[in-house]
C-alpha cells in the first residue's frame, strides 16, 4: 500500500508491505525493516524500526478520517495518513474561506467574561473572552485584527473544548 503522510509541516511518501510482526517500510524511498506488535492493547505498539526500539500510542482521530494521534515519549503529533485515492480527492477540494477567524475554547470551562459585541473592532491581542477552568482564569485574545461578526459565548455558560466563542472577520484577507 502507498500512503501520503503529513506530519507537522513535513510530507512523506510511505509504502508498506508485510504482515505483523514483520513489515517492510519505504519512507521517501528509504527502506526500513520494521518489527511491530501490540502490547496488551491495540493502541499500544512496540516498534523496532531498523532495531531501534520505542513504544508508540496510536489512536485514530474519530472526527478526522485518516488522522492518528501518535504519542511517543510524552510527545504527541497528529499524523494524517491518506491512501492515494484520498490524497487525490483532497487536492481537488476548494480552499477554505479566508478572512473568517473563529475563536474556539481551548478547553472545557466556564465563560466568566465576554469583552466584545458584534461589530466591535479588535486588534491582534485584544481580549475577547475569559474562560475559567481548573481555578485559572484564561483570557482568550484575538489572533488577528478585524471586526467581530458573531459572539456565541454567553456569560456563565459552560463550554466544551472546541466550542465556538467568537467569530472575527479579519482585515485585509477578506475574500
Amino acid at each position, binding site marked *: 500500500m502507498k500512503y501520503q503522510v503529513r506530519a507537522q509541516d513535513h510530507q512523506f511518501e510511505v509504502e508498506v508491505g508485510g504482515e505483523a510482526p514483520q513489515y517492510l517500510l519505504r519512507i521517501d524511498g528509504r527502506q526500513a525493516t520494521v518489527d511491530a506488535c501490540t502490547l496488551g492493547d491495540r493502541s499500544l505498539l512496540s516498534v523496532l*524500526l531498523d532495531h531501534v526500539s520505542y513504544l508508540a500510542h496510536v489512536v485514530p482521530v*474519530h472526527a478526522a478520517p485518516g488522522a492518528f494521534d501518535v504519542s511517543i515519549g510524552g510527545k504527541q*503529533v497528529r499524523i494524517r495518513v491518506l491512501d492515494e485515492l484520498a490524497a487525490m480527492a483532497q487536492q481537488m477540494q476548494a480552499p477554505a474561506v479566508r478572512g473568517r477567524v473563529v475563536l474556539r475554547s481551548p478547553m472545557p470551562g466556564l465563560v466568566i467574561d465576554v469583552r466584545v459585541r458584534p461589530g466591535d473592532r479588535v486588534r491582534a491581542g485584544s481580549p475577547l473572552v475569559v474562560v475559567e477552568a481548573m481555578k485559572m482564569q484564561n483570557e482568550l485574545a484575538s489572533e488577528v485584527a478585524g471586526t467581530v461578526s458573531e459572539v456565541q459565548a454567553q456569560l456563565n455558560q459552560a463550554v466544551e473544548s472546541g466550542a465556538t466563542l467568537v467569530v472575527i472577520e479579519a482585515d485585509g484577507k477578506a475574500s
Partner: protein
Amino acid sequence: MVRSRRVGTPAVERRRPARRLRKVLVANRGEIAVRVCKALRELGIASVAVYSEVDRTALHVSRADEAYPLDGNASLDTYLRGDKILAIAAACGADAIHPGYGFLSENAAFAAACRDAGVLFIGPSPEAIARMGDKLQARETARRAEVPLVPGSPGPVRDLREALAIAADLGYPVMLKAAAGGGGKGMRRVEAPAELESAFARTTEEARRAFANPELFLEKYILDPRHIEVQVFGDQHGHYAALGERECTIQRRHQKVIEEAPSPLVTPELRASMGKTATSLAAAVGYVGAGTVEFVADQAGNFYFLEMNTRLQVEHPVTELVTGLDLVHEQIRVAAGEPLSFLDRLPLEPRGWAIECRIYAEDPRRDFLPAVGRIVKLSIPYGPGVRNDFGIYEGYEVPVHYDPLLGKLAVWGEDRPQAIARMKRALHDLAIEGLRTNVAFHAWAMDQPAFRDGRLDTGFIARSFKPEMLDPAPAELERFVAAAVLRAYELDRTPRLPRNSGASAWARAARAGKDVLDEDAAG
C-alpha cells in the same frame, strides 16, 4: 470521643499528653488524599475519605477504609464545606481531620470549628494559621521576629489609585498578591503602570472567587529571583526544628513545576542561617506541626520572607527523600501530642539529592492550558531511587472541577547529576495516554544547560521554553510516521481478510472488537 472546649484563645498550644488516634478523616482529594491514607494505614489508624459526586471514582475513595459523599462538585460546595465535613467526622466518629494542602488546610475558621467540635485538626492552631495565613499579618509577625522582608505596601491596598502611588514608590516591576492567597494563586507580576488597572481588577476578582477575600497588597519584585523554602516543624512541647530547604524556582505563572532538595545555591552556612530564621518565626507563633517558610532569594544568596504555609507542601517528598523522615507520620504524631521524633538528629543535613516533577494534565504545546479526559494508558516508573505520588489510575476520567495536578514523580540520587539522570530515566518510563500532560516538558527541562548547572531563576520557563521545542526532530518524526502508517495499514487490510486466513493476531484482535474506530475514539 473526647469533647473539650477551651476558654480564651491561647497563642501557644498548651502541652498535653499524647492521645491515641483511631480514625482520621482526610478532608481532601487527589494525590495528597491518597498519600495521607497511606500514612494512616502504616500507622494503624483507620482512614475516612470524603468525595464530591464526580469523585466517586477517584483513587482516594478506594484507598480509604471508609468514604462519605459530599453533595455537588464545585469546591465551594464540597471540599471547602467545613460544616459538611465536620458533620461527617462526628457521624463516623473520627478523632481527627487531616486537611492535606489547599482547600481547608489554611482556613483558621475551620481549624477553630474543629477545636469547638472536639475533633483534632492535624495542623497548627487557628491562631497560628490566622497570623501566618493572612499575608499582611504574616509580614508584621515576621518583621517583629526580625525576619528580613521584601519592601512592599504596609497594608492592603485600598484602590487602584493607591496601588499606582505605592507601585511608583517601589519601582516596577511590582507584584500584586491576594492577602488570603497561597500556592501561587491570586498573584500577578506587573511590569508597568499601564498594566496595573487590568491586573488589579483581575487579581481582585480571582481573590474574591478563590479565597472569598478580595484584599490585595503590593510588593517589589526581585529580579532573577529564586524561590527557596525551609521546612519547619514544631511540637506541643516547645521544640522547633528546620528540616532543610527546597528549591522551587522552576515555576510557570507562579505555579511550582520542579522542586529539589537541597538547593544548588545554598551552602551549609546559608542553610544554617535560613533554618535559624525560619525556626524563629515558627517559635514566634507557637507553631505546632508541619509548616514551610518561603523565601525569595537573589542570586547572591540574600533572602527575604515571602510567606509561611501552615500546612504540608505539595513538594514535601523531596525533603522526605533527603532526610529519611516521613512528614505525614510526623504531623500525625505531633498532633497527637508526641514530641518531634528527630530531635537527637538535629541539625539535619541533607543526604544525597532529590528532585520532583509535578505531572499536570495540561498542554505545554498550547500555553499549558488545562486538559481533561480519560487516562486510557498509564505506566508508572519504578526502580532504584524513584518515588511516585499519584492520584490516578488507568481508565480514570480526570474531572474539570479541580486542580490539574495528576501526581508527582520524585527521584533520589547520591548527587545532583545522578538525580537528574534518574529523573530523565523515570520520565522516559512514565506513560500517560489519553490526555495531554507536561511529561515531555519535564524531559526538556532536565536537558537544559541552565537547569543542569543549577543556574536557576523563576523566569526560566517563560524565557527559555518555546512550544516548538517539544516537536520531534525531523529524524525522530519518522518514528511517529511509521507507527501511524502501520496502524492505518492494519485497519485498511482488516475488512478484506477472510476469516481465519492466517491474518495477523493484530488484525484478528481488531476484528473481534465491535467497531474498531468507535472503540478507539471512546479511548
